[in-house]
């Protein structure tokens, strides 16, 4: 078949779309039930909400079905959906101490008021591939008495508050200013803390985990901070009522919150200050503990500064958005042949030039 000019662009796209959709619907001609996904793949849904920057479990579940389980694709779909939604109000700041706690651990003390509540976690299970799940699975009867879900009144003292009471952690200053909104104004450097935390909160989990990991392996400022507390639970969202101006609860979001304590290695010698801990903070949608912990660690690394990768503000914050990163990396699949032709031409020119030069050099030596 000889050369023909490019044609049929639209029909190609439609054909590709149809192939994708056929996969989403499968052999039985029926997509997976987003409700079931939301229930039994809630951790995937949580990650999609977190990286999509939108708390909407139903939307995230549909996105996962639509994306055939591709978490980056699903987050992308949710982000795009977010852009279509009008902004009605800003929430009033919530004290996460109000959390309806589902899970709470404190690695800093063997016991602290409220104790260690493991909740639903795989941390202490063995990752042995469970083939029985292919045959319908076996669910053992729970013999232990489980505490009721309703642990609503906070019985858990914040470790941070306990240390503040002893003067070991500084009391944060009141900051009445509104936080920056990176979805409205692009981040500028040096970045405000609110801009940093927002960027981290919607970051791609793997990328911030990698940076946090690097900081633990010597490419950072502290060898080992301590995670003081990790909580998973639901916090209420309040807005000012449009008529009365009174705060009203409009719903609740499930979040994971992590707090890290570090000691600064660069304590100034001339400082008369007595040593204190510094706090790194992580808060993400849904249950995503590795992300919350990594976020808290990077909050500290970025604050501390220094030469390591994890402390380079621009390097970290510009490259951890999954939607942007995957988009740009994958854009390389777009046609680049105009550019490539130009590159080819340049290389051919230089090869010819150097070949001719070598020939004449050899000729002159003879």
């Amino acid at each position: 078949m000889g050369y023909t000019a490019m044609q049929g662009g639209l029909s190609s796209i439609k054909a590709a779309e149809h192939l994708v959709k056929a996969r989403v619907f499968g052999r039985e001609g029926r997509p997976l039930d987003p409700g079931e996904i939301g229930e039994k793949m809630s951790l995937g849904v949580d990650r999609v909400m977190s990286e999509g920057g939108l708390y909407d479990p139903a939307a995230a579940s549909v996105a996962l079905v639509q994306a055939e389980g591709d978490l980056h694709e699903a987050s992308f779909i949710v982000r795009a959906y977010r852009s279509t939604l009008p902004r009605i109000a800003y929430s009033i700041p919530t004290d996460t101490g109000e959390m309806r706690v589902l899970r709470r651990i404190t690695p800093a003390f063997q016991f602290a008021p409220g104790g260690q509540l493991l909740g639903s976690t795989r941390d202490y299970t063995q990752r042995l591939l469970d083939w029985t799940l292919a045959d319908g699975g076996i669910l053992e009867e729970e013999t232990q008495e489980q505490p009721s879900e309703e642990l609503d009144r906070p019985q858990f003292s914040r470790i941070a508050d306990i240390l503040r009471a002893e003067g070991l952690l500084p009391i944060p200053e009141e900051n009445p200013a509104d936080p920056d909104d990176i979805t409205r104004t692009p981040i500028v450097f040096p970045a405000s803390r609110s801009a940093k935390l927002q960027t981290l909160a919607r970051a791609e989990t793997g990328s911030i985990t990698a940076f946090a990991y690097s900081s633990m392996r010597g490419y950072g400022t502290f060898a080992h901070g301590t995670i003081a507390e990790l909580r998973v639970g639901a916090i209420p969202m309040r807005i000012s009522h449009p008529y009365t101006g009174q705060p009203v609860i409009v719903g609740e979001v499930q979040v994971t919150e992590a707090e890290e304590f570090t000691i600064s290695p660069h304590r100034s010698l001339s400082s008369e200050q007595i040593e204190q801990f510094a706090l790194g903070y992580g808060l993400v949608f849904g249950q995503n503990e590795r992300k919350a912990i990594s976020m808290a660690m990077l909050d500290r690394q970025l604050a501390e500064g220094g030469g390591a990768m994890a402390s380079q503000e621009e390097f970290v914050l510009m490259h951890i958005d999954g939607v942007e990163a995957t988009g740009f990396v994958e854009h390389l699949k777009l046609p680049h042949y105009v550019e490539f032709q130009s590159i080819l031409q340049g290389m051919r020119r230089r090869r010819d030039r150097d070949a001719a030069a070598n020939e004449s050099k050899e000729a002159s030596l003879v």
Partner: protein
Amino acid sequence: MSSVQELVAENVSPGHGAYNFGFLDETTKREVRRALLKAVALPGHQIPFGSREMPVARGWGTGGIQVTLSILGPDDTVKVIDQGADEGVNAWNIRRLITDTSGVPTTTDSREASIIQTRHRIPEVPLREGEVLVFQVPMPEPLRMVEPSERKTRAMHAQADYSRAWVHLYEDVVRRGEISHATGYPVMVAGRYLLSPSPIPRWDIPKLNMSEGIYLFGAGREKRVYAIPPHTEVVPIDFEDHPFYVESFAGRKCQKCGSEDVYMNEVILDDGRHAFTCSDSGFCDSRTEGAGE
């Protein structure tokens, strides 16, 4: 020469219900033991090994587990502790992996154990001859605090060039008036290698010196093992005028057994008061039982 079917039958895959004694296949165990033999022959030197992924997450004890499972035999008695406690959830998870795949008896009394796997504590009762303590190690490289590059730290060990570690300690004294290193204090083994003893408290460092038992260290994620054989000189690096010191629990007593000469946990009770108990729970139990008799 076996047929393919016979080979397959001999090496039953776990998906079909059966595990080898001690979970790992025999080839893996032999590999790990060879690395451990080298480690014992070169006290304090880190030996790389082909660390396997385990059903427990990296960073949660896979190195210690591989060492324990590789040296485990049917006559062993195993104790597993985390931060000194047998009841810790991660200690339970590791213990059941060991017992489910080996059937060996377990104990909480370190005096009865032949192998103790530990996360970040050495039991209060000194090891007996022939007893093995297996440490779970997060960061095997003591020089990581001054140099992130593996290539460079290997060269530093090879040339016994620990100058940067010493400078680090000097700077620490200048900034804080003392060496402020908390857990995992670097020690010099047999006068040759600088070693990270895993994040054990200073309290436990003196126990490393001239022990009757064997100390084995397993770092699964970093893929190293190392060892301190019995009767080896192990000394924390310090300055003549800033000598090594241990944590102090002066004036404290264990709430349960009354001990004063142990490393303690500080707990915060529901009413906000701070209380102290033995970190080594097995030791605490034996003291309480002893008192009861």
